[in-house]
Each structure stands twice: as structure tokens, then as C-alpha cells.
């Protein structure tokens, strides 16, 4: 288990490590493979990985239900926290590298630009989830914890919207992520309906599975 966790940590940190190396090269030589607009490249890369890790986190429950491997659940918290890490780095890059010197513009951007509004909202909603990710908080919150962490569904939708609204005309890439979110959330909806049906119909009733 420790080895598996170490591997997941390493995998989740790989994009950050590659980016850190490229930023170092960019800083030292002026060409670190980040292209003509390295700031935009950094923002985009961090944002994309935040979204990907968010979706991987969301895929854990369906995967467990389909495969029956409960062991997958042990990776959910760390993956979720990595999603928060990349989202925070994405926001930090925007503030420190991109808006540099124009801090005050952030308030106007959040208020006026829908894609920034939803992106910022998604990040805000991630905070309570990150804060309550400890064992102690899980115990203290009890059933409320599960309810609170359903915020992840809204966050996923907002994150995709954030991506969708910033492209000019080619929606294929955000569409792909939207489709994945639709499948991941659709599965849960399907499960819920199916489980309710089987519970109300004794003929097909099976022992209830834990959510």
C-alpha cells in the first residue's frame, strides 16, 4: 500500500516537476520549451492538470462500484488534494505572473468575466473540501461530511465551464472534458435511480451496497 501510494504521489507530482524544470530553464536561458508566451503556457498547463485530477478523483467511486475494489478509495483523498494543489498553483500563476503589477484588476475580472467568475468560484468551493479532508474532520462532521463533499459535483461543472468559456471557437477540447464529467455524474444519477428501484421492488432487491 505504501508503495502504491508513493507511486500515485510521484505520478501526481510529475506534471508539476516537469513544469518546474521548464520554468527553471525559461528563467535561466529564456527558452524552456514553454513557447512564445510562457506565462499563458504555465497557466494553461496547471489549470488542465487541476481539471484532470479532479476528474480522476471523481472517477474513483464509479470505478470502485464497477470493479468492486474498495482499495481504490484510499487514493481518493490524495488525488482530490492534488487537484486543489494544481488549482491553487493555477490561480497563483494568474495572480503573480500574469496580472503582475495589476493586482487590482483581479476584482474587476472576477466580477465582469464569467469564465473567471466560475473558475474562482470553483477554487473557493475546493477550500472547504481541502480543509475537511482530515480524519479528525471526517469524524467530527459525520454524515454532514458526505453531504459537504458532494460539492465536488458542482466544482467539476464549474471547472469545465471555466475552460469552455475561455476558448474562442474551437470547443472540442472542453467538450471532451464536459463529456467525461457528464459520464461521471450521469453514472451516479443512474446508480441512485437503479438502487431506489431495486429497494422498492422486493422481487429484484439485492443487499444494499454502501455508497
Amino acid at each position, binding site marked *: 500500500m505504501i508503495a502504491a501510494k508513493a507511486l500515485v504521489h510521484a505520478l501526481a507530482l510529475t506534471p508539476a516537476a516537469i513544469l518546474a524544470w521548464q520554468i527553471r530553464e525559461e*528563467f535561466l536561458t529564456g527558452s524552456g520549451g514553454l513557447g512564445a*508566451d510562457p*506565462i499563458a503556457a504555465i497557466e494553461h498547463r496547471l489549470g488542465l492538470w487541476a481539471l484532470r485530477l479532479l476528474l480522476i478523483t471523481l472517477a474513483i467511486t464509479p470505478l470502485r462500484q464497477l470493479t468492486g475494489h474498495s482499495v481504490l478509495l484510499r487514493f481518493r483523498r490524495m488525488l482530490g488534494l492534488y487537484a486543489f494543489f494544481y488549482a491553487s498553483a493555477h490561480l497563483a500563476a494568474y495572480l503573480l505572473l500574469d496580472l503582475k503589477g495589476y493586482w487590482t484588476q483581479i476584482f474587476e475580472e472576477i466580477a465582469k*468575466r464569467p*469564465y473567471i467568475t466560475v473558475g474562482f468560484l470553483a477554487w473557493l468551493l475546493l477550500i472547504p473540501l481541502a480543509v475537511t479532508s482530515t480524519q479528525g474532520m471526517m469524524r467530527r462532521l459525520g454524515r454532514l461530511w458526505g453531504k459537504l463533499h458532494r460539492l465536488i459535483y458542482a466544482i467539476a461543472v464549474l471547472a469545465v465551464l471555466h475552460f469552455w*468559456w475561455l476558448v474562442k471557437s474551437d470547443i472540442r477540447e472542453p467538450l471532451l472534458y464536459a463529456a467525461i464529467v457528464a459520464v461521471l455524474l450521469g453514472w451516479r444519477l443512474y446508480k441512485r435511480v437503479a438502487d431506489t428501484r431495486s429497494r422498492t421492488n422486493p422481487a429484484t432487491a439485492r443487499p444494499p451496497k454502501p455508497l
Partner: protein
Amino acid sequence: MSLRQVLNLPASQITDEAIYRDRRRLLTALALAPALGLSGCAEAEAPPPAGKPVSPEQAKAGFRTDEVLTRFEDVTSYNNFYEFGTNKGDPSAAAKTLRTSPWTVAVGGACAKPGKLSLEDLIKGLAPQERIYRLRCVEGWSMVIPWLGVPLADVLKRFEPTSKAKYVAFTTLSDRKQMPGTAYDSINWPYREGLRIDEAMHPLTLLATGLYGKSLPQQNGAPLRLVVPWKYGFKSIKSIIAITFVEKMPVTSWNQLQPSEYGFFSNVNPNVDHPRWSQKTERRIAGTGSKLFADRIATRLYNGYADQVAGLYTGMNLKTWF
């Protein structure tokens, strides 16, 4: 294709012969420049070719800026040219399939002498000039590019536009075989743009055939593109195959796609925000060192060319006519 491969392409593969000849002429002019006492110019970029020297008055006219140039590698590897894909790196990777020679341009509409001309004939006798312009993209980044080209007005006058010519419409080549990006309808192909006739005739408006003293790379709109420095980059249509004088405001691709976001005029204006990007500031992609800590800079009305072009828009509400 990597940048190195692009740079290593034989000239015959990327360069229209006529343009190549013009380049030779430019180089000859460069060689002659010291003899003519034009040396001592501290600027790194090539001085303008002989025959059409850029005087201090012309510099004041906005033809040149002494701002730090964007590197050649960046100008040629960071492109919006959706005919070759919608990612910035797509055009430099995919545009080698564009055949720029032979190239013909159809000029028609409200003019006395319409015709379908080879590129060579279209610009025959017009010495290429070097113009160092700022380029501001609607997405909030900007560059400083030394273009080579001829004033659009000089070309248009040859066709003797009539009094009915109120606007000029431009069309980009749209060929599935050469332009893989056109397989996807990110834009209603072919790409179309337009200018009001007085904008088209303005001395700043350039028909570019090159940059950095070289012929135009495919990804930058070879062999012939428009450069309108006081407007957002997308107005500067690439790889032009048709120029038409028209009476009514022509359809433009981005306006057609999202009229609330892309107006016909699309003048750079920090006071009129795009619904998604603030236009108050911009990231300048320039310099030779690290761009990581480059300062965001304030965007100027008409991209800093207000002295030259503000008169074109007197009395117009720029919020309505954005």
C-alpha cells in the same frame, strides 16, 4: 515540425520567387546603405530598402517604433491561423503544406480595372518597405514585429476603385488539401475580413510579404497578408486570395461567429472590454531574455496609433462601433 526544421527548409520551398527577388533587392539595398551614408543607425533591425527611405517624419507617422522587438522564433511559432489548427503552435507545425507559389489574387467589385493577378504582378514596381508595428491580439497579448510590405493604398489605387467602393473585402485561401484545420468548422470558411475604404487607404495599412527581412513564413500568412496595426490582430487577414471593392459593410468571419464579441471595426480600445478578456492591459511578448517576469503593460487606444488614425473615427461612438 520543429522550429529548427522550419528554419532549415530550402528557400525554394517556403519562398515565392518574386518575393525572393525582392528580398535580394532588399539585401542589395542593405549592402549599399553604408556607401550611401545611411549607416550609424543604432537599431538592430535592417534599415528600409533604398528608394523609399523612412524619414523622421515617417517615423512620426507611426511607421516605426523603437520598442523591443519580439523574437523571430516567437513571431513564427505563436500564431492564430485556424486554417492550420486552433492551437498557437499548430500553424508552425502544419503550415508547410501551404503552397505559396504560384499565387494569384482576384481583385474585383467596384473598380475600373478588375483582374486576377499573380502576386508578382500585384505588387510589381512597389518597393517593399520595412514597418515596425505593435500587434495587439484580442486575447490580451502583444508583439512588436518588423514587417516587410507595400502600402495597401498603392496596390488598391492600381485597380481604380469607383465612388461606389465604400469598403474593401478580403478572403483567405480555404483549401482542405493544404489547410488541415479547415476540416473542422471552427470558423465558417473561408476566412473573411474587411475594412472601410479610408482605413484601407490609410498609410499605416500594409500588405505584408515578409518579416524580419525575410519572406513571410506560411504560418504568418504567406505569401500575402494584411497588417492593420491599430486594430486587433484578427483583422489582419492572412494568405489573401481575393480583394473586392464593395458598397456595403462586408461580412467578416469573427463578427459572423460572435457579433457581441468581435465588431467590424475591432479597433484596439482599452475602454471597451471584450466580454471574456479585459482589454485594459496586455502581456508583451518581446525581448531576448526571460519572458517569465515580463511586466503587463497598459493597452493604448488604437494600439498607440491614435495620432495617426483617430481622425478616421471622429463622431463615432466607439462603444457601439467597437
